[in-house]
């Protein structure tokens, strides 16, 4: 099937305005008759829930954490992009659009990205009005910094805690609606299934994580804002609870999963210190504004970094990409780090690390300036490693950070299932094969504040409010399925813990479906994943019962889904016989080792349809048409 993204006609800069004028409206008196289910309360979920409630809809909001404020958007450090052109350095909506399309290695949908760039300016205004304490200069104006993949300063920031401040802004807007009774908030509640009635998404089944009770909620539309699936790799910069369950359950109910192999490996994370490691910590990419990345020229050079003279260092990013230098995009920087480590020039325990050195910046600007800019990041680094980065260069290594793939959506952010909308990292549409820094916050808030309030009305206007109630047999069936699965997990009583399996899966994924992928490796993964999955269902141990707070049971359900989803990722990676962005196939590279895209054969979105547990998923394509940018080799040299 050829998928239709429902991209409006007309010149790209007029598409969104024209489209908005054509969308149907729900009159204010009728809005209160509709209920919208919002799953997840990160930037996308909280902003959507708040904005929809402000309009008058009733919102049921869910999150697995104990408070909506804890969603993992909170951990984003560096900043948020917007085409404000405040610094007068030549920025424009077109440039932000172009940088994002190019940064995504021409695998994003043009019209969506343009809209994202357009509303980026509104986001900053909205957040300022909410009281987000963005950095200001001495005259009281908003301050900007530069970020990877861009040659100008368009990133707004709130110290090293931009995600936190933006999320708290959205959380506060959500809290106001909770107080006004327009949002019912369900914390410590996890979505375990999507309910579809007559082909339309009409509700969800959830588990109360405190009492273990399984219950159902019906609504007129469902918004999944459940983030990415980076934890399929076991170790990632995601929070421990981040999972694929909501989107994967929707996939099993018929929603198409798009580009699952597009994952982002972030170049600046703190290296792994041992087998016990439970998660990886990111150091904001903004550090690359002032830090210089290097490794020793010689292999196996074990000297203290400060004892290695300048001429025996290889500042490989500056050498290979002189015009972008240390600010080369994430996929490129990560791969370059892997290359030098594979050559045996990595530093630190195990040789999996490169230096990020601030000595020059400290010499140029003074320690105080660096402390002011990155103080909290340096503190964080010291807490984890016990090293003082003002004196010794940081050690960094790439780690899984973000997933560009997600449920397929059209221009309205509606999936192929009517009434199912997907926002933020959970959808696929804006970042192509690689996301630029400071763009995730922008997309989450764009979807929630400025896109969904318009597009969801168009769907609702065509439906009768509260037509489906939880007494519908589909809800009962879905609840029974969920209960049966929980019962099965608890009854296995095997010998290995959920973490044992998750770690094993993670190793396979990192090795064969990670930074560099090959046909051979992917086939190994496709053999290993089902084996691990089979053993999981024979030999996992989940203690306790289903009628209580049971964290192992929560984890078991999530890992069980990862064990299925991982296979879909490998299938997608195997089918995409090209290299683009974060997807690097070793068979497809330029003579100098850069990614070799194949626009002739792979300039499309790969959307996979579930066909049954024992059947291969079916591939559907949405051809990507580029009318406003020229497909070009993505060069940062």
């Amino acid at each position, binding site marked *: 099937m050829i998928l239709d993204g429902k991209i409006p006609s007309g010149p790209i800069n007029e598409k969104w305005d024209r489209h908005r004028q054509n969308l149907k409206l729900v009159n204010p008196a009728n809005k209160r008759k509709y209920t919208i289910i919002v799953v997840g309360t990160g930037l996308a979920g909280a*902003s959507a829930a*708040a*904005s929809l409630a*402000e309009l008058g809809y009733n919102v049921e909001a869910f999150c697995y*954490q*104990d*408070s909506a*404020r*804890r969603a*993992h958007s*909170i*951990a984003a450090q560096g900043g948020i992009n917007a085409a404000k052109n405040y610094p007068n350095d030549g920025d424009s909506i077109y440039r932000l659009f172009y940088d994002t399309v190019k940064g995504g290695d021409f695998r994003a949908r043009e019209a969506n990205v343009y809209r994202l760039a357009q509303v980026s300016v509104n986001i900053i*205004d*909205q957040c*300022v*009005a*909410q*009281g987000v*304490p*963005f950095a*200001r*200069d*001495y005259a009281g*104006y*908003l301050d900007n910094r530069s970020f990877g993949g861009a040659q100008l300063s368009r990133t707004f920031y709130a110290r090293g805690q931009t995600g*936190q*401040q933006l999320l*708290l802004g959205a959380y*506060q*807007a959500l*809290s*106001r609606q*909770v107080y006004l009774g327009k949002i019912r*908030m369900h914390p410590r509640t996890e979505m375990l299934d999507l309910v579809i009635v007559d082909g339309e998404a009409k509700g969800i089944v959830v588990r109360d994580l*405190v009492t273990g009770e399984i219950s159902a909620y019906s609504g007129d539309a469902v918004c999944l804002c459940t983030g990415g699936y980076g934890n399929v790799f076991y170790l990632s910069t995601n*929070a*421990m609870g981040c999972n694929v369950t909501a989107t994967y359950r929707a996939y099993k109910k018929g929603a198409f999963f798009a580009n699952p192999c597009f994952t982002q490996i972030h170049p600046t994370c703190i290296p792994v*210190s*041992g087998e*016990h*490691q*439970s*998660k990886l*910590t*990111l150091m904001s990419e903004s550090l690359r504004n002032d830090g210089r990345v290097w490794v020793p020229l010689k292999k196996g050079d074990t000297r203290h970094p400060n004892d290695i003279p300048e001429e025996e260092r290889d500042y490989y990013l500056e050498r290979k990409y002189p015009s972008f230098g240390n600010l080369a995009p994430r996929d490129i920087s990560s791969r370059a780090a892997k290359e030098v480590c594979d050559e045996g020039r990595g530093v630190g325990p195990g040789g999996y690390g490169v230096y990020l050195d601030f000595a020059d910046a400290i010499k140029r600007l003074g320690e105080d300036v660096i402390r002011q800019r990155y103080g909290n990041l340096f*503190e*964080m680094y010291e*807490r*984890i490693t016990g090293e003082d980065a003002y004196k010794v260069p940081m050690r960094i290594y790439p780690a899984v950070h973000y997933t560009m793939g997600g449920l397929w959506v059209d221009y309205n952010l509606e999936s192929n299932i009517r009434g199912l909308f997907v926002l933020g990292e959970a959808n696929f549409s804006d970042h192509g094969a690689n996301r630029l820094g400071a763009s995730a916050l922008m997309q989450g808030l764009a979807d929630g504040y*400025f896109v969904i*309030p318009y597009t969801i009305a168009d769907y609702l206007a065509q439906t009768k409010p509260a037509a489906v109630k939880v007494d519908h047999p589909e809800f009962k069936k879905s609840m029974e399925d969920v209960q049966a699965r929980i019962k099965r997990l608890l009854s296995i009583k095997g010998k290995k*813990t959920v*973490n*044992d399996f998750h770690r094993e899966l993670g190793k396979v994924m990192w090795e064969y479906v990670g930074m560099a992928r090959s046909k051979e490796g992917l086939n190994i993964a496709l053999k290993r994943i089902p084996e691990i999955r089979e053993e999981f269902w024979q030999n996992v*141990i989940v*203690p*306790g019962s289903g009628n*209580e*707070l049971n964290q*192992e049971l929560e984890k078991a359900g999530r890992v069980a889904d990862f064990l299925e989803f991982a296979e879909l990722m490998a299938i997608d990676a195997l089918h995409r016989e090209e290299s683009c962005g974060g997807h690097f196939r070793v068979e497809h590279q330029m003579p100098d080792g850069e990614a070799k895209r194949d626009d002739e054969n792979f300039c499309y979105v790969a959307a996979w349809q579930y066909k049954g547990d024992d059947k291969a998923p079916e591939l559907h394509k949405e051809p990507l048409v580029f009318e406003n940018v020229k497909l070009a080799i993505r060069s940062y040299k």
Partner: protein
Amino acid sequence: MDLNLYVWRQKDKDSQGRLEQYKAYDISPDMSFLEMLDVVNERLIKEGKEPIAFDHDCREGICGMCSQVINGVPHGPQEKTTVCQLHMRHFKDGDTIYIEPWRARAFPVIKDLIVDRSALDRIIQAGGYISVHTGGVPDGNAILISKKDADTAMDAAQCIGCGACVAACPNGSAMLFTAAKVSHLASLPQGRVEAAKRVCMMTEQMLKEGFGNCSNHYECEAACPKGIKVSFIAKLNREFIKAQF
């Protein structure tokens, strides 16, 4: 290193809890405190016992989910550090460590080390925001904010809502938490419009939830993983008094 742990175990909110003893073996100094508990839990599970329940999520010190009192100190011995960022290099072989949940009237224990902190959400719901709808706002640079005020607002806004201030306070007071939000918004011109109403609504909710009052122990500032200053409580009081006139 090997450690001797006493951990608070409590089946649910209605059951009686007690400290139970566990051993932790072969703990590396590079592990975080929570990774040490992961190791203990993995062993308990394999022995057919119930693992210790504790809240955690981001494990990078920003989500505010982790909440443990370690040897009597919320978030443990390292200054300005959440439990998830506390590393075992701060302990030594053979140490005995007591691990308990936040204890405060307004934070009932749900299970083991997990408490119910929804009271903090309700304080924010009562007024911890600027009442702006999405859309129709002026340009971001139309509102000038001096760097000093922006910095003060940010100092207060970095509260992660973990509740350590409440757990550390002999009165179980949430004044630092409330003061942080009141000060963040009151320091900005956008937040001034509703400042009086906000401080009244939030403090009223604070009392309703059963939090105690501040009597200047400063334990909250000492326990705060973000180093939020008690001077914000003075600002809260000032805003409160101003609101009466």
